[in-house]
């Protein structure tokens, strides 16, 4: 063998190792310079590329807005907030690794980030082991309460259960469950089934489709055969577009068969096509149309930066997360994780969705549940609300019918 196999291998490992070395050296300097100066570093970790970027970029924008607002008022503890933005690339392991980078290399005071359950689950051990703080801004499936995560989106008893209460009030007794095949829909449907059992409702069908699925005629046929009173929809992303187009194509609309969606916010309505979803109910804690001066200011500030953009629930929850963290830091007088956690317990803040309070026991927030109806202009109008903030109960301990769900 004349061909030296090993020589190219040298080039292989030398090059990146050299690059990494260079990088490493430089990063060490940076980290030391950053942590001691007169700024406070925070991490922002969302998918800026890949399938989830559509949604997550908007949250990054609202978090950035909150940081700008705080900095305009002098920052926290007299120091400006310096965001370090990382891309989770819609890939869960990347989230874990980037979280590690933010904590270990950038030594950030806290991280705001994540959207999918999977990304949160991937980051969770990183934050717990390193005793670092994550603020997670999206409604999720509950059954979790990490001491190092603050959950500013709704848990199930602040979104799913109120939506069911609404259906119950409207006299809907026969439900059909449609969801994308992943954790949130499966957990949500488990809760819905338990609720239905306790409240004399019937579940006529439960169907899951792969993420990114675009063929819904069979599913729509199954629904029309089952003849439910209402559909509970936990589909995700592009599947919603295909589902609603084909649902409408088969002759269904909100008057004939309401479809309660928990993943469609103002952002998504445009892509689905307003005429396909107009009149359909959705369940969230915040809408762009939510009344109040705080929201008016938020919407105005956001749209000043992003022309023609809408504001949605997760964006607002991300915006709140930054403000809540800043308030806790001020209260604690330090960015130290344990001190911030302690100060955050019971902390209240006026936000676009109204007054929210952090529940120290599980680090979720009290939120008002709101059912909205999609308007022909693409915005969502509130038609029902829980009147006052609901105490977060991620394990549904206060619901007797839910016993056994979280065991």
């Amino acid at each position, binding site marked *: 063998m004349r061909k030296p196999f090993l020589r190219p291998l040298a080039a292989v490992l030398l090059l990146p190792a050299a690059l990494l070395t260079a990088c490493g050296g430089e990063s060490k300097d940076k980290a030391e310079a950053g942590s001691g100066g007169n700024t406070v570093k925070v991490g922002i970790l969302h998918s800026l590329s890949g*399938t989830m*970027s*559509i949604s997550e*970029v908007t949250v990054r924008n609202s978090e950035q807005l909150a940081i700008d607002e705080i900095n305009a008022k002098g920052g926290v503890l007299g120091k400006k907030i310096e965001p370090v933005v990382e891309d989770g690339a819609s890939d869960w392991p990347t989230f874990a690794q980037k979280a590690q980078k933010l904590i270990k290399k950038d030594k950030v005071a806290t991280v705001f980030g994540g959207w999918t359950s999977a990304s949160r689950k991937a980051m969770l051990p990183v934050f717990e082991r390193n005793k670092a703080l994550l603020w997670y801004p999206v409604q999720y499936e509950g059954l979790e309460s990490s001491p190092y995560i603050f959950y500013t989106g709704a848990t199930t008893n602040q979104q799913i259960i109120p939506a069911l209460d609404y259906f119950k009030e409207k006299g809907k007794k026969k439900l059909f469950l449609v969801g994308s*095949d992943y954790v949130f829909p499966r957990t949500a449907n488990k809760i819905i089934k338990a609720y239905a059992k306790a409240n004399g409702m019937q579940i006529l069908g439960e*169907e*899951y*489709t*792969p993420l*990114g*699925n*675009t*063929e819904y*005629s*069979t*599913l729509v*046929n*199954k629904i*029309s*055969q089952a003849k439910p009173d209402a559909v509970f929809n936990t589909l995700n992303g*592009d599947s919603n*577009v*295909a589902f609603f*187009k*084909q649902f*409408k*194509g*088969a*002759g269904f609309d909100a008057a004939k068969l309401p479809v309660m969606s928990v993943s469609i916010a103002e*952002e*998504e309505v*445009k*892509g*689905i*096509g*307003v*005429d396909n979803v107009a009149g359909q109910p959705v369940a969230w804690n915040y809408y762009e149309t939510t009344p109040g001066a705080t929201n008016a200011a938020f919407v105005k500030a956001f749209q000043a930066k992003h022309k023609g953009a809408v504001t949605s629930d997760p964006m607002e929850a991300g915006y709140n997360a930054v403000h809540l963290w800043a308030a806790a830091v001020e209260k604690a007088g330090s960015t130290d994780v344990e001190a911030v956690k302690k100060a955050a317990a019971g902390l209240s803040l006026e936000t676009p969705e109204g007054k929210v309070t952090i529940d120290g026991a599980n680090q979720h927030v009290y939120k008002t549940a709101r059912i909205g109806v999609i308007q022909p202009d693409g915005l969502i109008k509130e038609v029902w609300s829980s009147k006052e903030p609901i105490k977060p109960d991620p394990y549904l301990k206060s619901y007797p019918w839910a016993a056994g769900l979280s065991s």
Partner: protein
Amino acid sequence: MEPLLNQLPIGLSIGAVLLLIALGLTFTFGQMGVINMAHGEFIMAGSYTAYMLQSRAGGEAVIVALPVAFAVAGALGWLLERLAVRHFYGRPLDTLLLTWGVSLVLQQAARDIFGAPNVQVVAPSWLTGRVTLLGGSLPYARLFIMGLAAACVVGVWAYLNRSRQGRRMRAVMQNRELAAVSGVATGRVDQLTFFIGSGLAGVAGVALTLIGPVGPSIGTYYIVDAFLVVVAGGLGQLRGAVIAAVALGMLNSFAEFWTDASLAKVIVFVVIVAFLQVRPQGLFVLRSRRLT
């Protein structure tokens, strides 16, 4: 029994979608052996063409867009053939990877031009109704897609079998060297083949706006299915593609009806692998005596 009967037209309409997205591949993959991973992005180009025309043509954009999308996607395909693919004939695996690179670039370009979120294409008002068939309803949009698929098949068949250009194309496919010696300008034929194959993807893209999302990643949703149709149907076989598409559509429809959507996809894959055990070259094979 009735719900089961409903699945028949549904299966047919899924088959029509599969056929529409795979038809272009019977040209590029079938006739030329080029695995064009950017095929999905040509579909996307067709969808965005409909979106762009909307502001001018309004509700009829979908109809106006059909020929325009054919031209736009076809031009993209032609460009791809001229700039890159033609250097790769005889190296199908390399083309596969090359065109995948192209597909990445096109996706990101769409994201930068049209934005990452899905956009809305409004269907013409006369396509919003439905007919009742076998106790279930079949939306006009689905009927339209079936009709379009049928029209494309007839068009392609006529082109391949009745026109001089088409006969040349088939000659080049069956024996490139011989065709070249017989005075067929194989380079021209290749360009045309690629143009038509990609153009058909554009037509499919327009049709898909009626039932699916319109966004930068839609190509990735269809590409694997499209190739499976061609693999099951047999290389370059129009007949095979039609039968395979309808069969897979039916299989999908009934498998999903009895199980669920996730399992249906797995079942389709298993059936195809099993099928290839019986017919490794797909449904229809052009027999030849050549070694390799």
